[in-house]
């Protein structure tokens, strides 16, 4: 595709700090469903199915949705930790999906990920100092052993861990401390963009605020851009500037965080909001609740048209006929994929 190559070359050279940091276009990530002794492909899990998303420099974009909606897959696809099936992910104007390994490796230094449980996938026999220092080696960011040690101590200090902890092992740490180690590791490469995938949902309630405040402090200090993925809309609304709502592989609504709460347009967003319990008995008992019918639709066999229509209280025949694009509702920055928005 020569036209596209030219376009991508152009935007790479003309990208400025005022442009979006990340632009996702028509991104799809499908996984094959295999069955039988020959493991033949019998279907596709459309985990991410045509997503458009823009992440601005220095902002926190919240990404919410229920389990299986594809939010984690989207986060990983953006970092190319999972190889997307098609589409574009432009980072600072360059399409990452068409990059070779060397260019990709250089790009990786600019981005990082924070996981729900940072130790789930790591070697329990590595000291936390080595865990945090590893990205420095991979990207040759420390020339000497001493430089590396200094940087690791500096990172520990940044996330509120005593530098004397560097020689300890993961099992000696509490959940909150482990997440601090995970954050220190993410910061090691001095990234501009961090995907935070459910960073507080495994933590005790009393610890969550510590980590949320830490992430906010670090963002301010280093002008970080976050994609903050979580199922807890109260947490997401607190930390995000804008929020994107996902349902079965699609972004169905995106808007400023406050506006999303005050005037949701998509019926799914409205029911999600109404389902979140508020820790105040007087408020909680006076609330009108939308109780949805049934379960989340299957990403293997999504309903025709709008995917939410099978549970929607506003669905009309039109909703089954064609899929509403994200800009069906456009109120300035506020977009929603719905023919019958709440208004």
């Amino acid at each position, binding site marked *: 595709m020569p036209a596209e190559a030219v376009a991508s070359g152009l935007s790479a050279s003309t990208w400025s700090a005022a442009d979006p940091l990340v632009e996702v276009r028509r991104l799809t990530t499908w996984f094959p469903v295999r069955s039988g002794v020959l493991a033949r492909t019998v279907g596709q899990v459309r985990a991410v199915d045509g997503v458009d998303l823009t992440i601005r420099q220095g902002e926190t974009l919240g990404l919410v949705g229920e389990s299986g909606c594809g939010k984690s897959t989207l986060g990983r696809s953006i970092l190319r930790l999972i190889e997307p099936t098609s589409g574009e992910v432009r980072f600072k104007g360059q399409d990452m999906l068409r990059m070779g390994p060397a260019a990709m490796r250089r790009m990786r230094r600019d981005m990082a990920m924070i996981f729900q449980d940072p130790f789930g996938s790591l070697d329990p026999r590595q000291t936390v100092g080595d865990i945090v220092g590893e990205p420095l080696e991979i990207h040759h960011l420390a020339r000497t052993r001493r430089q590396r040690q200094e940087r690791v101590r500096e990172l520990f200090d940044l996330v509120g861990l005593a530098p004397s902890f560097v020689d300890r092992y993961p099992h000696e740490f509490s959940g909150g401390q482990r997440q601090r180690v995970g954050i220190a590791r993410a910061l090691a490469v001095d990234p501009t963009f961090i995907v935070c995938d459910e960073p507080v949902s495994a933590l005790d309630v009393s610890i969550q605020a*510590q980590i949320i405040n830490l992430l906010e402090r670090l963002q301010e200090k280093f002008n970080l851009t976050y994609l903050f993925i979580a199922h807890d*809309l109260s947490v997401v609304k607190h930390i995000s500037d804008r929020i994107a709502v996902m349902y079965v592989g699609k972004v169905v609504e995106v808007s400023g965080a406050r506006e999303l709460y005050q005037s949701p347009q998509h019926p799914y967003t409205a029911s999600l909001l109404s389902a979140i319990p508020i820790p105040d008995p007087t408020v909680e008992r006076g609330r009108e*609740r939308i109780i949805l019918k049934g379960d989340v639709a299957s990403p293997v066999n999504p309903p025709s048209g709008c995917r939410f229509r099978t549970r929607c209280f506003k669905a009309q025949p039109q909703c089954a006929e064609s899929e509403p694009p994200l800009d069906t509702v456009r109120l300035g920055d506020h977009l929603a994929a719905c023919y019958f928005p709440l208004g």
Partner: protein
Amino acid sequence: MSLHLLELEDVHTKLTLKTGVVRAVDGVSFHVDAGETLGIVGESGSGKSMTALSIMRLLPRSGRIDSGAIRFKGRELTGLSEDEMEEIRGTEMAMIFQDPMTSLNPVYRTGWQVGEPLQIHRGIDVRAALAAAIAMFKKVGIPEAEKRVAQYPHVFSGGMSQRAMIAMGLTTSPSLLIADEPTTALDVTIQAQILDLLRTLNRDSGMATILITHNLGVVAGICDRVIVMYAGRVVEQGRTEDVFAHPEHPYTWSLLHSIPRLDADDREPLKVIEGSPPDMMGLPSGCKFQPRCPFAVERCAKDEPELRDVRGHLARCWVTQAGTSLNGSVDAG
């Protein structure tokens, strides 16, 4: 004094582990009345689940009720034989758990499992039990109940499994349902469905419910009264409205101020509870929350306070018992 449906008096439950003895439940007293919903809130390790398992006598092998009384309809449970206890569990008390997927037996049809308690405890035959299971499925909102009872658990979604678990618990019309984090593994829209179901069942049947959760929003939505647990102890207890409007224990106060609220409009940093949840193997002297407490005074590290009445509900705190109001206090935290 009227008779409570369930009454716990100074219950102590110990877990004997390889690394030492943990006082998982350390002197817990409370009651539940017919028709009410009592919330038990606490973090992991606070003793909330062990309290429930002590009531049901379903403790792990390492666990033992050391002392205290558990009376159900006036009958002391702690001295009952396993057979007698099983009869009560099958007919008068039911418990549902966080993960419905692992609580259902994968090799039996769901309808058979839901009807089984009736076969065992009411002596009815398979056919009648299946009919009862269909009726229960309808009651808990499982669509196509006639078809669903013939299916195995693996085809049920999380929300449907939890409904089936609730149906199983309710077949014998128990007077007490203990629900241990029943919605924690579920998505919020499904959580809303299940809470709505519990609310309806509670209203229609007069059954009492103990709801164990870490989610203060869930408590605010459906509990009449609430107990807050910390380090195996009850630190605050009262009517839900009172406890939320003026918490009298700094732990409750801090929790309420540290969680982001959907309806809050500010972007101020959250108030943080310093430190980590307590290490049950090495609890501090005095008040167990004192090392993390923004209000602590000298006395707190020395003596442990009792649970006493403070402005209309119970709290285990020297500071509020001495008259200080946490809400009116200087900006702590």
